[in-house]
């Protein structure tokens, strides 16, 4: 028998603040971090995006000047998580780090103040490793927009099969940069206002930034959440467009449901980027999975697309939704906008919640589905 793995702690920093409980309160109150930003260091034109205000977190980090902006965010979240849950930093603690682009903002940037070598994800990770003195080597992965969710799955599998590890920290993060903004702009994927996931009038995504972390253990606590099932499948269809049949996501959901023992799902935290193709693909995959009537939200209109952090951040908010027995509404949705109907959550209803499905999809045709259940 494989050991069960549980999420026993979480932490996040977003433009709405530091603290996962605080972030949950903000989203149920309907607050969004997305706003119009005019900054020539990000884009030549104003964009709708969500950015963390640096001024709030200076002073908490030792030798702060030695770290890049993103490294400071990683350090801040890790320090908070480790302190709150008294996590030992010995060789029994696995650390998995997810990021799509790490310190890429430094690359060829005439305004950079760090050596360009720091652009390498492993170099960044080594700085974080040294700061905390973790005994086991941090394992970084970079798998497009499923990175955060995939890192949970990787850590879970290592806890199940590798007897060296007893517990794991899984952390994911990405920051806004000209590199990212210019690329999504070139793809014509950016909305010219607040994004509207699954809505008829959706016109693209907003970009955001966050760092989010979970603490995994084989020993459940009273309010632990069980990682009941995971499935991850590639579409094998197109490198930059989702499958028209939602095949990879459909297979991912099937596998996760099977592993979890086909539980009744109380809600779905979808990827829901608010691009035309992504949301349509998800609606098809969910319809094929028989989940069209399960209450569903996308959290992208609160935070924008936080790339490598999104799977983790949205999982954490889903967990707080379970613990508080309160659904989070899908901000930005007004009119049915996909060929297959979905049961969009429009009100922050209080009701008993036991399990949810988190999905994510990304460039390269990758997809992942994870099922979380209260213990």
């Amino acid at each position, binding site marked *: 028998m494989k050991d069960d793995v549980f999420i026993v702690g979480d932490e996040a920093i977003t433009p709405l603040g530091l603290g996962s409980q605080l972030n949950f309160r903000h989203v149920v109150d309907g607050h969004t971090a997305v706003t119009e930003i005019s900054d020539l260091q990000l884009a030549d034109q104003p964009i709708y995006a969500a950015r963390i205000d640096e001024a709030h977190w200076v002073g908490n980090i030792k030798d702060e000047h030695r770290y890049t902006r993103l490294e400071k965010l990683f350090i801040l979240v890790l320090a908070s998580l480790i302190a709150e849950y008294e996590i030992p930093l010995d060789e029994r603690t696995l650390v998995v780090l997810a990021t799509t682009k790490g310190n890429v903002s430094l690359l060829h940037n005439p305004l950079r103040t760090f050596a360009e070598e720091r*652009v390498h994800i492993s170099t960044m990770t080594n700085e974080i490793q040294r700061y905390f003195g973790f005994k086991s080597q941090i394992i970084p992965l*970079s798998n497009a927009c499923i990175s955060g969710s995939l890192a949970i799955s990787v850590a879970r599998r290592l806890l199940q099969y590798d007897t060296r590890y007893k517990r794991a920290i899984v952390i994911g993060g990405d920051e806004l940069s000209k590199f990212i903004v210019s690329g999504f702009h070139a793809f014509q994927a950016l909305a010219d206002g607040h994004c509207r996931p699954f809505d008829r009038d959706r016109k693209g995504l907003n970009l955001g930034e966050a760092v989010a972390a979970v603490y995994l253990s084989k020993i459940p606590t009273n309010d632990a959440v069980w990682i009941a099932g995971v499935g991850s499948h590639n579409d094998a269809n197109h490198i*930059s467009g989702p499958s028209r049949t939602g095949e990879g996501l459909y297979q991912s959901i099937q596998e996760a449901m099977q592993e979890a023992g086909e539980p009744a799902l109380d809600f779905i935290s979808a990827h829901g980027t608010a691009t035309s193709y992504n949301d349509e693909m998800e609606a098809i995959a969910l319809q094929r999975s028989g989940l069209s009537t399960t209450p569903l939200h996308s959290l992208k209109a609160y935070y924008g697309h936080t790339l490598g952090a999104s799977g983790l951040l949205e999982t954490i908010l889903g967990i707080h939704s379970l613990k508080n027995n309160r659904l989070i509404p899908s901000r930005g949705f007004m009119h049915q906008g996909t060929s297959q109907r979905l049961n969009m959550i429009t009100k922050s209803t209080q009701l008993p919640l036991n399990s949810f499905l988190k999905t994510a999809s990304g460039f390269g045709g990758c997809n992942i589905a994870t099922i979380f259940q209260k213990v």
Partner: protein
Amino acid sequence: MEKHQYHIQSYCRIRGCAIQINGKPFFNLVPSVPIGDFLKSAYRHLNIDYPKFHKMDGLCKAIFIAVELMALESGPYQRDTALIFSNRSSSHLSDSRHATGIFDTINPVASPSTFVYTLPNIAMGEISIRHQLQSENVFFIFDSYLPEFLVPFTASMLEDGKAGSVLCGWTEITAETCDLLLYHVGISTGPLHNVEQLKRLYNEEDE
């Protein structure tokens, strides 16, 4: 917890301007040839027609060639062949091209066809399309080739029953270096899948 013994069903190494499949030379050019030209020549030597190859960046091209050669030895790959790749520089070749474009002082430009390759897992997407693999993909970033991590992780994926076999390895491709070792792990015959063996295959001297 490892219950089964797995085997390296085939392996491919590309280093400098030399390609070996299962330890035997397949193609090589003098080391001074630029990597782009070398990969294009190697593709011609494969004698296949796959126009998408020419759109790929260097990372994808090198991986494509290696996976193509291994398919001749231990393929065709089943749909549940998982991909576990790793390198140090992620998608640095395309990252650098995209960043050069956007910070150009005279004519800043961002191209979608470059930007799409600024993720290392795109190479796994390309391989999945070519060989119709609808499997799990993970791209790890390490300082150097790390069989001590890859071997137990690959074994756990096979033990988990989520994959029938795994294409795995190290794929470090930059403007200056080409250092790739990919191998196909499964239950068929071949050298044993363990850390010592994989260190040996990586360090093997050219014939």
